[in-house]
């Protein structure tokens, strides 16, 4: 799937996972897509939910098979 930006948040923990994702989305235009690499467990449970709460569209979640996931998010124009 094509994306307009890529962010890896496997090296940080809550709440910086969400903070970094949120700031990365702010830099995109509405409708653009962020590709996000995140860890299994707490991040994959909470980050997509927080992004939906802010109105963004979570498109696909893919298991990379190495304890990480890739999430595609479409920016929605709230912020």
């Amino acid at each position, binding site marked *: 799937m094509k994306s307009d930006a890529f962010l890896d948040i496997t090296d940080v923990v809550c*709440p910086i996972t969400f903070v970094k994702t949120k700031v990365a989305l702010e830099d995109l235009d509405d409708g653009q897509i962020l590709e996000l690499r995140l860890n299994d467990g707490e991040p994959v449970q909470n980050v997509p939910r927080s992004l939906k709460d802010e109105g963004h569209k979570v498109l696909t979640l893919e298991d990379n098979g190495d304890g990480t996931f890739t999430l595609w998010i479409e920016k929605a124009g709230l912020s």
Partner: protein
Amino acid sequence: MSQLTNEQLERYSRHIILEQVGGKGQKKILSAKVLIIGTGGLGAPAAMYLAAAGVGHIGLVDFDTVDLSNLQRQIIHLTNDVGKAKTQSGRETINAMNPDVQVHAYDEQVTAANIRDIIGDLDYDFIIDGTDNFPAKFLINDACVLMRKPFSHAGIIRFQGQTMTYVPDKSPCYRCVFPKMPPKDAVPTCRQAGVLGVMGGVIGTIQATEALKFVLGIGELLTGYLLTYDALTMTFRKIKIPRNRRCNICGEQPTITELFDYEQPTCSFGR
């Protein structure tokens, strides 16, 4: 403005998470310029919260030195600071709190002669009146109205506090509510008037909140209202105040068009 550093993303994470703030809002805070007049009971907590919030430029105006009797409420000054200029002591505390903040010190009392230059020095975005006397409060109001600058007024005495926010064209000014200086014998001298130390914390923190909301452009400011606080009965009241069309400075036919100083009642007891 440049990107937030990883350290800033972490330091301000609880701000950035807020839907109404975000990274964009935090950048606004980091480039904001807030002037705090008086680093006493009100100005001290206001300055500290604004410093913690990452307000990029904080101006501190005070001509006094730290006195032992200040420490019961002026929490930006520490025991070791007694005798130091308050602006210097304030600067040291802020520098220790947050390296993102630049402190601009003005070691003087605001007067009709210098207040325009002080506010204009950095073209401050928002002004906090943390002074403890009526002449300064009227002067700050008049200067902000004439210079079209938003500001937060506040006062504390004993167990009581009050605050209101002025925004040009949008709200009544301090003179709309209090047209004239109170008569001298009606004003308790500072010797007679004690104040519970926490009063400045409650009201000064509200002033800092208003500054942050203004900078962020969020929520509703305390414009058109006077908020009063009685700590003994734990009562907050939000009193609606109208604009006074006949206000001497912001009314339809203003009579005050230039700044002037009221006579300063003298008091040597620590502020």
